[in-house]
């Protein structure tokens, strides 16, 4: 039995240890906010935080997660109460089709927590593992930049 915390809630996982984290999230626990775009670590749509670090949930086997703290997009805020990063995305148009957005938000959240560089180059590096085909990255970068620079 693998015990872990997911978005602050304790979970026990009894399935096969080589099962992927993304499948446990989406299929066992109904956390469908985490998306699968490639299944091989290239697109970043499945980015979640594991012990605060960004990781591709499509590459992580459950067997590695005993005692881990997993956070997904569902932990950030709700449609009625967006968090600061999400609010910036809403204002700046950082989400278009939205399929890359959960992963982008989690990568940006990790960057924010790590007190990473706030300039364009720094933000681009932090998001370089996340593909977006809609935005040309312009409004995503502006969103993250606004959230990092915002007061409060």
């Amino acid at each position, binding site marked *: 039995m693998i015990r872990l915390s997911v978005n602050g809630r304790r979970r026990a996982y009894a399935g096969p240890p080589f099962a992927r984290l993304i499948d446990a999230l989406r299929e066992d626990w109904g956390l469908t906010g985490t998306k699968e775009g490639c299944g091989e670590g290239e697109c970043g749509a499945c980015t979640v935080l594991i012990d605060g670090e960004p990781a591709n949930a499509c590459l992580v086997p459950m067997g590695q997660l005993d005692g881990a703290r997993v956070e997904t997009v569902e932990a950030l805020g709700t449609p009625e109460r967006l968090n600061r990063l999400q609010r910036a995305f809403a204002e700046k*148009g950082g989400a*278009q089709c*939205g399929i890359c957005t959960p992963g982008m938000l989690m990568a940006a959240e990790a960057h924010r927590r790590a007190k990473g560089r706030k300039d364009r180059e720094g933000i681009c590096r932090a998001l370089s593992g996340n593909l977006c085909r809609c935005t040309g990255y312009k409004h995503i970068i502006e969103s993250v930049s606004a959230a990092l620079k915002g007061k409060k």
Partner: protein
Amino acid sequence: MRPVGESAPRKDGPDKLCGAARYIDDHPIPGALFGVTVRSRSASGRIKGVRFDPSFPWAECVVADARDIPGKNAVHLLGDDQPLLADGVVRHAFEPVLLVGHPDRATAWRALENVTLEIEPIEPVLTMEDSVSRKRVIWGDDNVFKTITIKKGDAAAALAQAPVVVEGVYRVPHQEQAYIENQGMSAWFEEDGTLVVMGSLQCPYYVHKALQPIFALPAEKVRVIHAVTGGGFGGKEEYPNMLGGHAALLALKAKRPVKMIYDRTEDMQATTKRHPAVVRHRTGLTKDGRLLAQEIDILMDGGAYMTLSPVVLSRGILHATGPYECPNVSVLARSVATNTPPNGAFRGFGAPQTLFAAEMHWEKIASVLGKDPVDLRRRNAVKVGSVLATGQVLKESVSAGKVLETAVKRSNWTAARRAHARWNKDPGKPTWRGLGLSLVHHGAGFTGNGEVYLKSRAGLAIDRAGRVTVLAGSTEMGQGASSTLAQIAADALGVPYGSVSVERPDTARVPDSGPTVASRTTMVVGGLVRRAASDLRTALAKAAGRAPSGAPAFRRAARKLCGAASERRFLAEYERPAGLTFDDVNYVGDAYGSYGFAACAVELEVDRTTFEVRLLRVFTAQDVGKAVNPRVVEGQIAGGTVQGLGWALLEQCVYKDGALQNPRLTDYVIPTALDVPDIEVAIVEDPYSCGPFGAKGVGEMPMDPPGPAVAAAVFNATGLFLPTLPILPERIQEAADEEAARRALK
């Protein structure tokens, strides 16, 4: 503040930002089987048999083939030539042959490893050249899906007399849409026999129409529901007809709901791509660079079945001259069949292909004449009163000159080119630098009489509480359609944006507003919504005795208007603007009601050792008539520009024996945040009198100019003329080596 012109926050934003928006794979479908597709590995052959490995639990599976289709085995589109499942013969690699459903997803995928198709190969036709020369006839009598010609004046005579004639051949490759959400569909039958299909798609009514003949069902027994869609770019225009048919066929056979979600590899191997094209130009000019004649030959590779190839070709030929006026034009365009997966809709729809050629040809002409390429464009660009190749007279909203001058100014054209020339002369510098520019036009809406045939309808519903809902089959796939239509409705009604909602596209609930394609949603569907809103406004005023002002009065008027009914609907149907005519046999007349115009300037450097290209600055000016939501418009322009930059510099589909060899995002590379600079966007607004609030098209045009601007910048930087995309470092190196060899010979 009036809603139109405001960067209102998107309606779909909050749900998407919280992981609450449900894409097709996020919808729980109780009791569903997961469906997978057994595909041909061979590009061409006869199916001799199917072997099922007995060690696999086939008893737990449902298997369907062509014989299970109750109606016609054809994916309805322009022609009915493409079977839903191959019956006896396969005509391209990854053609679907069998469907397998299993309750467990992983087991369903494993089924594919346990079934083998025995296919007796037939020599395939894999290139456009082999197809045209009829190496073997694989489609119709002559392998040609469609031929179109356009004639204006006498190009041959004018070329014979022209003081300068410049020729060029340009090639553009396949491109993968690479939406980040793969294709997916669910299907089930209701107790009353109604077939319901829900999925990731652009055009609910296309799927609705395609399913009827396959299942021999009347229209009212088919329902198509749009799920939140993670990008389309044309890739979800026609392919969902196929995938929806597959999911439904398995559901019919299994008597259970079915979900089919492609993985990335299958999506890239099997679904449509941008049509590759070869475009030849012969151009006659005066010595000072005025156009006298354009002779253009276009060849596009349609793949194994017709899909949308004739209309892609149509848009391609109608943009082939570029936004320039020329007295004598002759264009021949053909789309041909090959034994490769069918190509289809992709943002721009044939125009990026022919515009790449048209624009690169100006670079060539400029170097032959020793003139500045911007000056040549200036001299020949269309203006109000210009006559296009089809004889269409441009009457209004012609901003070619304006977008060009904006790009020239903002890119610092003359000074930057001079500075780069100095930099490039210095052998100590690690790179060569260049600045290139392109100018394009893009017709908004369906080509020619398309909108007339579509007879689109859209409108609004109002309920007793005064809640207003937009009713349209136009889908939100990231481009901002829902917010844009709500803004138009709110503005026309004089109510706040926040009080208008948008109905989910569902053929049981919304009228057919036509497909969500061709940069038509804002201009055409938005126009219908605006007309419906003005009807509603009149009706409210009539019901209330005077025009309601303020929310309480609006609600009272709505209650009166609805009377005993829970809601009332106001729909408008498309009417062609007065004075437009198009002869779609001879290609004469008003091909599009209006055109957008765009210019793009790309500044880049090429590493002198590795030939890697680094983009320094990308600036683009685009005329959209009126930006209903400037933020949304800017997002479309930035996104389309980067998609175009990817096509120009990174994206390459590698084929072997008609099968894609790099069907993964690891080896089909699309731009990341590190690959592109901040895209600088200037929105130009030259209003179109027949568009709502002056709006023209937005979505596709950004895809057109980056390709030629990049190639022009590489030419400016290195002196190497690369008429073929993508411009990979190895291509530049080859060209440099050839150039060096040529010099050595001299």
